[in-house]
């Protein structure tokens, strides 16, 4: 207990929620990275069969219950004779207009960005190879929905590019000999946090206009930033390769660890509550892995939500009609085959 929560500075509350609803899916594989649509009507999630295929599914939600079966996103050409499975689709982000944008590649192919309207299965390639070549990854949509930033490895090192929706033009925003990744827009759209591979570690930078400056460095990786107001929330493994923490930074060089030994999500940034006051996470301690944790960003308070499941993690929060819904993945029990997606209403568990 001490080992895991010594960094939690404020009061700790324990809540036991009623059993979370499991989202039924015929897909065989571990479920990762659930992501709520901005209207709370859909959840996108990934299913990895650990045999080279990572599929993206979308399920319609009605509160904490699902409406119909999840539908698998189909990449163009995925059913051609040149594609014998092995497709990879994931890292979905929801556009304010409704569709989702995600990374995808057919077996052995280049990773590109695709667009999918929820309720349909056929995805379309969003940005053509004539606009920018290479593997495209880390999509992030500007708050007004007019721009999409992403990373392309066309130059050999990952560079952040921006796609302008109106003009359909793609522009390289940053050029460096290092790989940039995980761009995250500030809510006002004027600046962007991102991480950069730098001498073996990953440091955080902030780009404003055309000026980019180092924000937080240190040992290990400072990665996957997410803005919460003027604070950047990110993952850090400064204490060691397998020891991941959640940290915040409100000024250049400042860093406060607010949660230690968390279970690092497969792809996603830190999951924030809709009001941007809390960060949600699972932990790596097997004895505590049945809980999902919520810590206030100022570190003053932590809520533990017992799920009754095992190895809970990959959380995503959404507020719909005044109800706060938590989506997460977990094993049904010790020794179970696959992590499944669960959704639970935690409105009454919040302070």
């Amino acid at each position, binding site marked *: 207990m001490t080992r895991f929560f010594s960094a939690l500075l404020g009061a700790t509350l324990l809540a036991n929620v009623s059993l979370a609803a499991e989202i039924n899916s015929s897909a065989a594989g571990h479920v990762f990275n659930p992501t709520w649509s901005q209207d709370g009507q859909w959840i996108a999630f990934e299913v990895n069969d650990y045999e080279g295929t990572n599929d993206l599914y979308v399920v319609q939600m009605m509160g904490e219950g699902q409406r119909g079966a999840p539908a698998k996103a189909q990449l163009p050409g995925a059913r*051609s004779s040149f594609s014998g499975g092995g497709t990879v689709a994931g890292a979905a982000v929801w*556009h304010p207009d409704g*569709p989702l944008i995600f990374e995808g590649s057919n077996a052995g192919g280049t990773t590109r960005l695709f*667009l999918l*309207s929820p309720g349909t299965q056929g995805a379309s390639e*969003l940005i053509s190879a004539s606009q920018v070549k290479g593997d495209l990854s880390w999509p992030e949509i500007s708050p007004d929905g007019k721009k999409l930033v992403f990373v392309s490895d066309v130059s050999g090192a990952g560079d952040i590019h921006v796609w302008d929706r*109106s003009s359909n033009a793609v522009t390289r925003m940053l050029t460096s000999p290092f790989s940039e990744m995980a761009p995250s827009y500030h809510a006002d759209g004027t600046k962007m946090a991102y991480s950069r591979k730098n001498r073996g570690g990953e440091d955080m930078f902030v780009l404003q206009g055309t000026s980019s400056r180092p924000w937080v460095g240190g040992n290990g990786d400072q990665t996957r930033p997410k803005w919460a107001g003027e604070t950047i929330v990110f993952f850090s493994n400064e204490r060691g390769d397998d020891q991941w923490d959640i940290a915040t930074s409100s000024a250049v060089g400042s860093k406060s660890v607010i949660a230690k030994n968390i279970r690092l999500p497969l792809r996603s940034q830190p999951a924030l509550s809709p009001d941007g006051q809390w960060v949600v996470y699972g932990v790596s301690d097997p004895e505590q892995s049945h809980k999902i944790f919520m810590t206030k960003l100022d570190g003053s308070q932590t809520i533990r939500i017992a799920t009754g499941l095992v190895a809970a993690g990959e959380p995503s929060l959404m507020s719909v009609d005044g109800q706060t819904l938590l989506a997460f993945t977990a094993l049904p029990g010790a020794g179970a085959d696959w992590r499944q997606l669960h959704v639970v209403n935690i409105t009454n568990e919040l302070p």
Partner: protein
Amino acid sequence: MMISSLRPLVLLAVVAGFMVGDAHALSKTEAKAEQVRLSDDMRRLAKRAHWRGVDRSYRSLTDLERKGVVLTFDEHFLGAQAARELGNVTLVYRRLVMAKGVEAKSEATNWIADILSKYGEVELLIPDRYKGEANLVVAVMPLQPDQRKTIGMAQQRVTDGKSYDGLLPAGEYTFGPHTFKVTAGGDTIILEVNKKGAGTISKRKAGEKEPFRFTYMGPRADLGLAWTRATDSGSGAAPGSFGGFGARGSLGFEAGVGGPFAVVIDLGYQGLSGMPADDGGELDRVQGFNLENDQMHLFYVWLAGAIDFDALDVAVGPMYGLGSGSVAGVGQSCIDNASGTGCGNVSESSTQTLRHSRLEGSIKAFGLAAGVTYDVVEFGKFAGAISLNTGAMSDGMSWYPFGTLGFSVGPVGQEDE
């Protein structure tokens, strides 16, 4: 004499017939066989995902419709699939509507409904030599690549000064000073602008008949060489037969009326100059007579209906000519027998006088003409073509058969879909 003098006309008719025959080469049975072949081609190419080839075969199939071939649901549906793969939603929609017209299968009706849940029909009618602002701007660019591509195609057309008749994704658009809203599956929006950019926006409900509108229009011109013959009038003081070659030129206008059909109006000049001759052969100079070439200057108006067989256009219609002639010699019957019927006023004249006398007068003739043009070059909205024309007019006394060979310039015609 008569036969040999008509030889050029016969030759022209044979050449024209050969050209037209090329377009009409397929009988109905052969067209049906061609449909089977093209249909097989489409399926084979579709299996190989060679969608450009499928589209090409489909277009060839639709050409056969002019020969009475009726396309099947599957052919239209495969054409729609090809259009989808090629990223043209308007064509997908049009072909699905054709498929549904053959049989209202759910795969077509559902697909149409899906398209109409996102798109609406628009006609942006832009006249030639449009001088207004030619930017089509969408208020919010959609995210879906197919919708962006559709807008891009429309933008490209109007930027090129061409009208756009097709689908646009639902949303608000601005063209010059005009703003209009496209509603998914809603009424067709019609924006018709004049050359200066002013215009009107109207709506047409689904199923409402489209008002007649020329599908294309443009000026045409023809320049070349004409051979004209005038038959013997058979009356005493009127000219005998004469003929010869001369220049021919015309200016006109052509307008499409739908499908491959068009109307043509030409105003032109056709001249003739030839050695005077009669059954006794070419006339020799004789003292007392000023021997000059027979001449005719005819201004004409030709109104024709035309049909377009790809590079080949065929036009047929009435022609009215007005002009003058200056000819040596009266009709052959009076030369042969000056005291014969109808030769009363010339019966006292000698044969030499009858053969060499200069007759001048006006001509008003009416008849029928046909023209064939074969496109050999295209430049912008115009095509240059080899032209062959033939026809005959009559002024009640003589017939004026003619044939021409020239080079014409005219509008390309209706664009492919």
